[in-house]
């Protein structure tokens, strides 16, 4: 092994920088899952009967399903009875009415993470619905948004305050029968965010949620539902980071987006969950179902994601293009280092006429990382004039990582046009030496190369998010060429 490789290994081997715990008391339901636990969760959240019934139906359906095995990821079996399905910070019971009432320990945690709560949020123009251990603790700017008629609140709150909206749209994009993890989520989801933009309104600020997994052995089951009514617009940011942890943590979120006629939803994610240590120990299992429904004509849904964390990522943000002339977009940067595994991609389901979709996927694999793009473009018989453009690029750093591409294309309408482009490039010692001989450190060189590779995706992120994403990639990958 050359000294350059040694140096590079050191750089790749950097430990997770966001690793720390907070010592809040939590109110945790006993481990295991049965109908009583589902009822208990529903009762704790004081839910109306329809919610409890829906959860129970989902639970019963989940019992009939088997964990999916088709993806390229491998992991030890998950013991679903060893997981505690509900935990809420104790301070919740006292009901913090404002930031002043919020546990200062919690606020310090957010501070360490750089979450722009308090005044910083106002300056940054970001409204934060902070989800901490399954329950929303603080929601800022809600009143300001409410004046405009925008509903932006925790899912629990939405169930209480807007049960009709929840009942109308919950499960309408991702039904509880959709897949194993979606069924599980539907049965036990603890909280999440809810957003409704009334007709013709352009949401004046970026809506943002920060997630954090922080209770030992507590699976996280977030549920997000965003409805953009006719002619409205909303941009939503989701950012995640988690503390250092030894045990694997299961995360199975569901995100549903509904865009009615002429509405537009932009959904951006930066995911930085604990990926496991450099030997592949620990780390979060992230099995997510994200789907948008372009229900109305001329509607538009875009997913932009930067995935750097988790031991396992299993995630396919998709768009159902029902409305005529609707547009679906998916832009993704997925990075795997050490022993991380990612099986991610998208599904674009063209049903309406003249529907368009664009897929840009950038996969980066380093160390012993495994990166798979899995994408489906389906053009139904009804989708006259449908068009898709897919670009799928892989970047390999070093020679112990792997990248795979699994494009599935099903076209049932002869007027459709589907394009697929794919490239794979490897960054090795030659590139590194070339940059070094121009005065760049190995860290700067890798960061430059990776950011160059990802710029088509980063340019779609809001400014602050793009900066955060670049930093994340820098930290996750510095010098990983050998």
């Amino acid at each position, binding site marked *: *092994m050359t000294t350059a490789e040694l140096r590079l290994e050191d750089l790749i081997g950097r430990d997770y920088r966001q690793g720390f715990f907070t010592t809040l008391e939590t109110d945790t339901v006993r481990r295991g899952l049965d109908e009583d636990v589902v009822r208990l969760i529903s009762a704790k959240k004081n839910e109306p009967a329809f919610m409890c019934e829906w959860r129970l139906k989902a639970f019963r359906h989940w019992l009939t399903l088997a964990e999916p095995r088709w993806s390229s990821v491998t992991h030890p079996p998950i013991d679903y009875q060893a997981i505690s399905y509900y935990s809420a910070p104790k301070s919740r019971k006292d009901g913090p009415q404002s930031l002043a009432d919020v546990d200062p320990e919690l606020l310090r945690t957010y501070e360490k993470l750089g979450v722009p709560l308090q005044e910083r949020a106002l300056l940054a123009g970001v409204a934060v619905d902070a989800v901490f251990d399954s329950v929303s603790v603080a929601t800022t700017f809600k009143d300001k948004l409410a004046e405009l008629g925008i509903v932006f609140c925790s899912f629990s709150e939405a169930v209480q305050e807007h049960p009709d909206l929840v009942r109308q749209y919950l499960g309408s994009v991702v039904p509880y029968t959709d897949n194993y993890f979606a069924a599980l989520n539907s049965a036990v989801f603890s909280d999440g965010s809810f957003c409704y933009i009334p007709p013709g309104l352009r949401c004046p600020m970026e809506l943002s949620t920060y997630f954090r997994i922080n209770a030992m052995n507590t699976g996280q089951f977030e549920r997000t539902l965003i409805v953009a009514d006719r002619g409205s617009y909303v941009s939503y940011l989701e950012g995640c980071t988690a503390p250092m942890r030894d045990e694997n943590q299961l995360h199975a979120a569901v995100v549903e987006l509904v865009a009615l006629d002429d509405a537009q939803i932009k959904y951006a994610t930066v995911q930085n969950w604990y990926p496991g240590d450099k030997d592949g120990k620990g780390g979060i299992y992230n099995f997510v179902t994200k789907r948008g429904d372009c229900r109305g004509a001329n509607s538009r849904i875009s997913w932009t994601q930067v995935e750097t964390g988790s031991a396992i990522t299993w995630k396919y943000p998709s768009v159902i293009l029902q409305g005529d002339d609707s547009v679906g977009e998916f832009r993704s940067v997925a990075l795997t280092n050490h022993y991380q595994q990612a099986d991610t991609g998208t599904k674009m389901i063209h049903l309406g006429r003249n529907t368009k979709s664009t897929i840009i996927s950038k996969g980066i694999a380093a160390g012993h990382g495994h990166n798979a793009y899995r994408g489906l473009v389906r053009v139904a018989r009804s989708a006259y004039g449908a068009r898709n453009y897919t670009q799928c690029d892989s*970047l390999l750093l070093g020679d112990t990582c792997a990248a795979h591409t699994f494009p599935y294309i099903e076209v049932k309408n002869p007027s459709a046009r589907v394009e697929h482009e794919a490239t794979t490039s490897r960054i090795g010692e030659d590139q590194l030496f070339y940059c*070094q*001989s121009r*005065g760049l450190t190995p860290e700067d060189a890798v960061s430059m190369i990776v950011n160059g*590779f990802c710029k088509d995706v980063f340019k779609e992120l809001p400014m602050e998010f793009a900066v955060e994403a670049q930093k994340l990639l820098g930290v996750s990958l510095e010098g990983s060429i050998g």
Partner: protein
Amino acid sequence: MLDIVNLHAGIDDGTAIRPILHGLDLSVKAGEVHAVMGPNGSGKSTLAQLLAGRDSYRVTAGSVQYLGRNLLELPPEERARAGIFLAFQYPVEIPGVANIYLLKAAVNAVRTHRGEAELDAIDILALVRDKLKFMGMDEALLYRAVNQGFSGGEKKRNEILQMALLEPKLAILDETDSGLDIDALKIVADGIAAMRSPQRAIILVTHYQRLLDYIVPDRVHVLAQGRIALSGGPELAQELERRGYGWVDTASATRVGATA
């Protein structure tokens, strides 16, 4: 500026070191242009890459002093910041990175090292445009990925462009003339000639005399079997062109005999 004494070095293939340089001596002063010539496999490129810090080469004996410092201790990026520039024989492609980004990063790395303020995108562009014109390069090349899809001539010109921007103290050009047609050779040679200055030393590694028609060197060295077999003035290059490298062995034997 550069003092190489009794340098022994080889390539590390992971299991053993295959020796290439066997006791090379070379001294280069500021303001001088030295041509290093020699047949294939004589160690010319090894010398060039070793001076830039390529780490697959191992020094087994001897020393290299650059501006009074032990050059061999420095990683490649510190050598670059201290003013050493290597124009690559085979410039490396970097997918996804626009040429202008690399130029900006490189210029700013060197400027920061010198204690100068970093240049922003607009200043860099103004600086680059000026040099670009001189090198007869299309501005579109700035926005393409570094060296990707560049023709042989474009790659070499791009190296000289980088050199012109980085203003090195010691420029080492590794067969920058190879693979160029006559027009491109003229442009590249003019680019190099424009860099000649009393503060700067230039080492031209080349097979052929033709580059030296444009840039007349102060000294010419012939490398054979890993050491300098012959040194002389510019007339030596012309003699080589006439008589070929085969002549070097006998000539060097005679001269060594004469000085002994």
